[in-house]
């Protein structure tokens, strides 16, 4: 243990360094600090760093399962990977870490309150009380201010009502108008109990309506003013935001909702497409042009308003969660739910719409815990938003942040998370990661000629030109995509590492959890990106899972698919015979039938593609024939779309193994009888049977199945009378399976209607 811990100590600084050098984080930190009004920046930064370290430590610890897979430590790995593997064995760390984390967690709310508004799930109130107080002061103050302002404003409202009208742009009010009626409808019922008893209900309603329209007009004028000229009217934003504190009990909920939504739209429109960077001291000191000054003011105002807006939203959600009645009793407890829902919707919208802007990390931290909320609507909304974000994210930065937080949550919740959360990860758009650093490092250098070469090949002038040219090229490259691409790949690598970490952790520690299906699905999806050294252990784990018999059919298919993805990628260097997997698939093929889940066919088709067509050299003829025969038999008992898919797979098989055509002959080959019930494709003597079932399929009720059966009967010729049409032969089995899907009762191919009334059956 001694040397290990020593090593660990040695490594640690490098890790911190790594953290430091991560530009993104630094930037983020800097900015966040800037916006803090408190002067205790330095101290906080320290703490923050500590926190981050703690978090990363957590993620290290979580890697533990992996470390057990490994048999011998490998030295020539990537730096950071080596690091996180090496840091694992330190068991002593655990307790300390835990304590530290706990402490951090408590402090976190305080820390993040202003920076990130991140609230760790188990934040305890005891310690956070202080900061909350501090924080609470702020809105109160503002409230007063705002109220004053409002009073001032109300008399002038005619004016402010008039001015914006003149410059109102048609785009803005539309967005709001859309939202308003809906909200109002929702609210009418909610509000009734709050009516003041002095007036008759009729009058109250009228009064309320009047108030509402007033407020609405006000809101509309404010937001349209902001939108019309954001640089000048940034102050109006503040005013608008102040309406979030609406206190009049009879319209409070509605107004708040409306303000939330309209602020959301306004922010979406006026936020610039870059991240706003806080100014350094020097920059502040330096004299600038008037326009720049204005721009700076705008940016500063925008960022601070945005921050406050987010805080308000979060506070709303938090209040709802804690079931507290706050904010001067203006809002009843029941209507808090609706309010919080709107707030969450706004947050989700922001999450998706402004991934580049400041505070995005904070939004992520806010949304992710809500993904496992017990209220179904909320969790669905958040999961949907996260999936959308992951799908849209092109830079990889946001994905990384999301994945990190999810990982923390899964671990922190002791794997007690909804599967939907993990299913979101399937939306990640990751195509490639860096597998080995050395290959990539050498690759770009080769582009340029070495000095020697130049000397021999080119004249002096040419050399000069060349030099200039190369320099230019380099600059261009740097300026353009190449840098961002490298960065992207790096981010993706990191993201994926964390994703696998989640997966492996669950595989190792929580095999019985409900998350297993989504884990297996995820593994199958990203299998080609898994690192080589885990293969051996992963395969054995997967095989163990399959043979344990606890899995559903779908899960075992995912296992098989994963293992073959692994083997077909870089895994071909491993000399493993996946015979067991073949036999398992063969054995379980007949579990697929028309009565069961039809979606599984897609995975079977993928498996077949990887196992047989892509590995043709490793597959014996006997095995191929065995599969061919069984698949044909299987296709008798499936829904038509699956049948078409399987038959198309058979066609591919016949093309890859031309010798399979003996299955179309009725002659005996060698000894033995075909044993259809035997579960080993090699020994069932498939050469001694024929594909007679094609004749049954030729009478199938589905036209496409008939077509394929007739095609296969003729030996699947690619030309001549028995050939398929171009479009059909180009589709892959999985595509065909999807094309002819029967899931929603659509008819493909369409059924011709009666000749007189040209109606056609609903087709796709």
């Amino acid at each position, binding site marked *: 243990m001694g040397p290990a811990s020593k090593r660990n100590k040695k490594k640690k600084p490098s890790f911190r360094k790594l953290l430091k050098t991560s530009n993104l984080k630094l930037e983020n930190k800097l900015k966040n600090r800037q916006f803090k009004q408190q002067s205790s920046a330095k101290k906080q930064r320290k703490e923050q760093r500590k926190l981050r370290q703690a978090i990363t430590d957590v993620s290290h610890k979580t890697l533990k399962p992996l470390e057990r897979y490994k048999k011998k430590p490998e030295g020539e790995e990537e730096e950071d990977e080596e690091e996180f593997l090496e840091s694992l064995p330190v068991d002593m760390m655990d307790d300390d870490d835990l304590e530290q984390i706990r402490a951090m967690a408590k402090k976190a709310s305080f820390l993040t309150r202003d920076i990130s508004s991140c609230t760790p799930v188990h934040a305890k109130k005891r310690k956070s009380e202080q900061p909350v107080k501090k924080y609470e002061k702020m809105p109160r103050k503002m409230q007063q201010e705002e109220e004053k302002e409002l009073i001032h404003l109300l008399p002038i409202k005619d004016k402010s009502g008039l001015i914006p009208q003149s410059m109102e742009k048609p785009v803005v009010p539309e967005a709001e108008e859309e939202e308003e009626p809906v909200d109002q409808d929702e609210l009418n019922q909610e509000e009734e109990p709050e009516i003041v008893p002095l007036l008759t209900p009729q009058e109250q309603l009228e009064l309320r309506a009047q108030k509402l329209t007033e407020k609405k007009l006000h809101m509309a004028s404010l937001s349209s003013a902001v939108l019309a000229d954001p640089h000048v009217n940034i102050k109006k934003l503040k005013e608008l935001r102040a309406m979030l504190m609406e206190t009049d009990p009879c319209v409070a909920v509605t107004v708040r909702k409306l303000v939330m939504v309209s602020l959301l739209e306004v922010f979406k429109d006026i936020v610039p497409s870059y991240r706003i960077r806080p100014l350094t001291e020097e920059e502040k000191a330096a004299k600038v042009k008037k326009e720049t000054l204005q721009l700076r003011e705008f940016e500063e105002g925008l960022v601070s308003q945005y921050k406050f807006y987010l805080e308000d939203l979060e506070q709303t959600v938090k209040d709802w969660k804690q079931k507290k009645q706050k904010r001067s009793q203006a809002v009843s407890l029941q209507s808090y739910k609706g309010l919080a829902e709107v707030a969450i919707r706004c947050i989700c919208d922001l999450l998706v719409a402004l991934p580049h802007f400041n505070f995005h990390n904070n939004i992520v931290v806010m949304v992710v815990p809500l993904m496992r909320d017990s209220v179904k609507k909320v969790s669905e909304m958040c999961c949907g938003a996260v999936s959308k974000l992951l799908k849209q994210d092109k830079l990889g930065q946001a994905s990384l942040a999301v994945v990190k937080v999810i990982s923390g949550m899964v671990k922190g919740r002791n794997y007690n998370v909804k599967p939907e959360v993990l299913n979101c990860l399937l939306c990640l758009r990751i195509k490639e990661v860096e597998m080995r650093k050395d290959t990539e490092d050498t690759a770009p250098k080769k582009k340029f000629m070495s000095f020697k070469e130049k000397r021999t090949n080119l004249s002096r002038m040419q050399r000069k030109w060349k030099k200039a040219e190369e320099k230019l090229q380099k600059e261009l490259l740097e300026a353009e995509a190449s840098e961002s691409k490298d960065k992207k790949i790096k981010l993706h690598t990191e993201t994926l590492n964390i994703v696998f970490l989640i997966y492996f952790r669950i595989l190792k520690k929580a095999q019985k959890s409900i998350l297993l299906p989504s884990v297996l699905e995820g593994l199958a999806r990203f299998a080609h990106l898994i690192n080589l050294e885990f293969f051996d252990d992963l395969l054995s784990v997967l095989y163990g899972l399959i043979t344990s018999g606890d899995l559903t059919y779908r899960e075992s298919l995912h296992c098989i698919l994963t293992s073959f993805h692994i083997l077909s990628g870089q895994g071909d260097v491993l000399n493993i015979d996946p015979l067991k997997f073949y036999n398992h698939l063969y054995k379980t093929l007949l579990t697929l039938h028309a*009565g069961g889940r039809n979606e599984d066919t897609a995975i079977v088709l993928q498996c077949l593609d990887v196992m047989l067509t892509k590995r043709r050299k490793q597959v014996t003829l006997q095995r191929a024939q065995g599969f061919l025969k069984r698949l044909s038999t299987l296709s008798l008992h499936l829904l038509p779309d699956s049948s078409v898919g399987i038959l198309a797979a058979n066609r591919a098989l016949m093309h890859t193994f031309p010798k399979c055509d003996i299955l179309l002959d009725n002659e005996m080959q060698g000894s033995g009888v075909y044993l259809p019930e035997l579960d080993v494709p090699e020994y069932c003597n498939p050469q001694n049977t024929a594909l007679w079932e094609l004749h049954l399929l*030729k009478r199938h009720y589905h036209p496409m199945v008939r077509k394929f059966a007739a095609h296969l009967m003729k030996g699947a010729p690619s030309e001549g009378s028995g050939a398929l049409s171009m479009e059909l032969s180009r589709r892959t089995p999985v595509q065909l399976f999807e094309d002819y899907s*029967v899931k929603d009762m659509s008819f493909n191919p369409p059924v011709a209607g009666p000749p007189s009334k040209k109606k056609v059956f609903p087709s796709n």
Partner: protein
Amino acid sequence: KVWAFKAAVATTKGDSEELCRYTISDSAVFNSLVLFCIKDMHAALSKMLKLKAPELILPSSSPRWQKNQIDIKMYVAGVVQLLSSLTQATVIAAVLRHANQMVPYYLCLPKQCRHLLKSLIKHWSTGEETVRVLAFLALNKICRHKQEIYLNSVLKQMYIAYVKNCKFTSPNTLPMINFMQRTLAEMYSLDTQVSYQHAFIYIRQLAIHLRNAINLKKKETYQSVYNWQYVHCLYLWCRVLSTIYPSEVLEPLLYPLCQVIIGCIKLVPISRYYPLRLHCVRAITLLSANTKTYVPALPFLLEILQREDFNKKPGRMSIKPINFAVILKLSKTNLQEKAYKDGLVEQLYDLILEYFHTQACSIGFPELALPTIVQLKAFLKECKVANYCKQMRQLLEKIQENCSYITGRRQKAAFGVADVTAVAAWEKQVAVEGTPLTKYYSQWKKLREKEIQLEISGKERMEDLNLPEIKRKKAEEKKANKKEFKGLFESDSDDDDDDLFKSKGKASC
């Protein structure tokens, strides 16, 4: 003679409307009058118009037609009114018989004919056994002779009447519904072009219902599919398509119909709806037996076998066996009864055997049977109830026997898989010779029918319900049907010939 006839007409009319010269107060007089009309009117009329062979020639071709038209019209209308106001089954039957005779007259009078059709359809769909048969005969006669005018609307109305009247299914109404199904199928076979349009629209309607149910996933939409009307419509179209099998026009409809049935099975695949699933499978079997189409149905049966735990001791004992033929949905208590499991195993046995029977001579039989064999073996390994095991073992043996028979035969065959014609000939040959399964099936069928008879008579003794009556009537009706069908086919061919001539004539013109 004409005077007497006129008086008769007037009285018939007066009987129902009472605004005529003669009012009849005495029921005896009325009876004798009606009786007289029914007995002699047809002969009298044909005599009057001097018709030789009333079946073939329309009365309007007679020279005296113009003169007597008004009287005949009145009389004919009177008969229709009489029909709709009568309630006693025997009398209606007698009047219907008369109306049947009078069909040629109706054919000349479109308005009266329409009225007649209306009341005929009403009797066909709601009346007593013999009444239904007679009404159908008349309907058929009319439609055969004036296809282009009436067939379309008649089919439509009949379909609607059918749907209306199969809302509830009980042991009493089931034979009626079956009768309607068969006769309606017969009507559809008159003109395949017209039937295609009807079938297309109605199957499409079924598909749309199903699709809504799939998409909306609500209880009400499920209810719009999972009801007797829907199931009976599926049956009906299966019946129609199988009656008119070798027809190029209707063949394209097999595909959507099968898809709808399978979609229906898969909509809510829970055990409480097993009876409905069994109905659907039966419909598929019917269809695939008669149309030489392969439709996978076994998986749905095997799934039941796989999912149901037959070892579990039944929670409740019950005396009454569950009649799977007349239920769609089981109650929760039903699911715990022993009768449920007994009935289910029996039904599965029947249906699997029946399905295999339809494919017994196919060259791909061993492949078709493979999952069943595997599944049954697994079942026998698991199941500890001797009774069920016995049944299933027997089934397994029969299937295996047939498998090895087919395998042996096809191994000796000298042709390859690609030789379609040779395979067809081979299958035909096997069908003629018979396979072990077909032989067993015919034996079993006889036994089974006897069993059902016994069961019914046993019930009769026990409860003295009106069940046996129906049984008798059913047999009777079948006879009648058969007779009638023979006639139909003959006349059909006649019609076809006529059509042919017409078209030829047109072509030559």
